[in-house]
């Protein structure tokens, strides 16, 4: 059967789009509303995933305690980066964030005793025992599957991830509509002006950074549960830039543009996976993998040229000075 016609495949694409939605929502809070150029979002995602997995496997904690701690650890990571780095100019801050996410990845690769090293979470336990961190999660998923009467676990995961994504989108949307969110937008527009209006710009930026990092932590949890195994290589900087593409595709400063961008990105990414017709069949499979990235790049360049404000963004806002 053609994979593109398989329900399971598209359910998987939908799950990944949901995880990316949560990851990119964090960036939307940080950049779309507070103007923070965070190029290290994947680092917070890794902290969330690893904290949960380590607490469950090594400490034997309940998943339902380890998961919120994973989110808290990601948010704390945001605070730790922000405290020294938010005083820097925007471009230097961007460099610090990307360096931070690479440090997280290198630590995860080299601190074998803590993280399982480059072998990933399979090596979290003692040598010779393959360990799993998602036992409790799988039981919950099975329970939900039976309650919903679904036959596929992919479809169940799809429903769970998007239910959580919609709740997080709604809460974020509501919070950003408050006077607190208004101050963030003021800082994005002109932080000196905001400061001279009596706003503690540093404190607000720190909060936005931590909130966005916490959302990345949530994305990390779902990433871990979806794949039931992960390694430091899963948290390459490329993932951060996928989240940025989603943000640009959807549109800046609009919460509901994030899922739209994630779905469009997910379908472009998945749809270019099987270029098994002419003229693509003229190339070998290695070359085709690169060709796919070139095609994704071209599609995104075209979209940004035709709609620089993103699919749901406001073009007028872009030209105001």
């Amino acid at each position, binding site marked *: 059967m053609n994979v593109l016609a398989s329900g399971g495949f598209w359910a998987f694409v939908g799950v990944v789009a949901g995880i990316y939605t949560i990851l990119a929502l964090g960036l939307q809070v940080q950049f779309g509303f507070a103007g923070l150029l965070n190029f290290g979002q994947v680092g917070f995602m890794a902290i969330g995933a690893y904290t949960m997995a380590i607490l469950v496997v090594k400490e034997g904690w309940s998943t339902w305690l380890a998961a919120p701690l994973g989110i808290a650890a990601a948010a704390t990571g945001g605070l730790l980066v922000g405290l020294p780095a938010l005083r820097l100019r925007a471009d230097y801050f961007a460099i610090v964030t990307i360096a931070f996410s690479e440090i997280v990845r290198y630590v995860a690769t080299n601190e074998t005793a803590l993280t399982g090293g480059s072998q990933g979470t399979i090596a979290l336990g003692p040598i010779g025992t393959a360990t799993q961190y998602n036992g409790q999660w799988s039981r919950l998923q099975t329970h939900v599957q039976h309650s919903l009467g679904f036959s596929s676990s992919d479809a169940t995961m799809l429903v769970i991830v998007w239910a959580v994504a919609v709740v997080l989108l709604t809460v974020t949307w509501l*919070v950003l509509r*408050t*006077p*607190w969110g*208004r*101050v963030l*937008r*003021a800082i*994005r*527009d*002109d932080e*000196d*002006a*905001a*400061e*001279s*209006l*009596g*706003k*503690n*710009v540093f404190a607000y930026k720190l*909060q936005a950074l931590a909130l966005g990092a916490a959302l990345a932590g949530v994305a990390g949890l779902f990433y871990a549960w979806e794949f039931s195994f992960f390694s430091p290589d899963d948290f390459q900087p490329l993932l951060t830039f996928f989240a940025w593409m989603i943000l640009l595709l959807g549109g800046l*400063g609009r919460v509901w543009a994030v899922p739209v961008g994630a779905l469009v990105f997910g379908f472009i990414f998945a749809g270019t996976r099987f270029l098994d017709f002419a003229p693509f069949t003229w190339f070998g499979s290695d070359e085709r993998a690169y060709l796919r990235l070139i095609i994704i790049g071209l599609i995104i360049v075209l979209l940004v040229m035709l709609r620089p404000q993103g699919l749901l963004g406001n073009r*007028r*806002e872009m030209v*105001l*000075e």
Partner: protein
Amino acid sequence: MLLEVDGVVRTFGAVRAVDGATLSVEDHSITGLIGPNGAGKSTLFATIAGSLRPDSGRIVFAGRRIDRRPAHRVASLGVVRTYQAARVLTRMSVLDNLLVATTHHPGERLTTLATRPRAARAHEERTRARAHEHLALVGLDGHAGAYAGTLSGGQRKLLDLARVLMLEPSLVLLDEPMAGVAPALRVELLDHILALRRDRGITFLIVEHDLDFVMRAADSVVVMNEGRVLTAGTPDEVRTNEDVVDAYLGKAH
């Protein structure tokens, strides 16, 4: 005295932008701060407003030292500045520009937003009513929903002024309020400043290159040159002071 600046020094590398400036601003006065380009006026402004820290010297406002406080704390104490080019929040509506200009808003803190939602809503309603009053005051009520980035230069100055007033300041620092403003609006802006001093007792310290405006509006004028205060006095005293003429025209006139 509402504001006392005492021996303030601020250097940038080898440049002593402000080099021991001392001046005072009387309560309810309009004080003009003039001087040639590079005299240190803008730097002194930034140190009073808290966006720059002085290397040495003291700045006392209403009996409290403010020279070690960050800008947002100085602003919430009632010392509010404007910038040469009005720094309106271009991608926000004119109304939102005013709504941001409020202090102690429980809705602006995540903790109080969650614990005291009613207080936040009540404060928001009061702020909204005040914002509409201030828009009407400067004649921008027809533009409440427009992006501030669509306003003209003069309208931005009026919006900036309205935004400053929202904070109920006791001392307003105006940085070249007349720069880039059409002549018709200049008269309006001057009237606003005089009325605000009269009706609300607001004190103004104004950096301005338009000497005609300074001499008409100010009760006292402070002249800066090369980072120091050259002289201070009434507009008439300053106008006839030979040092001032030298500073502006060069010694060999």
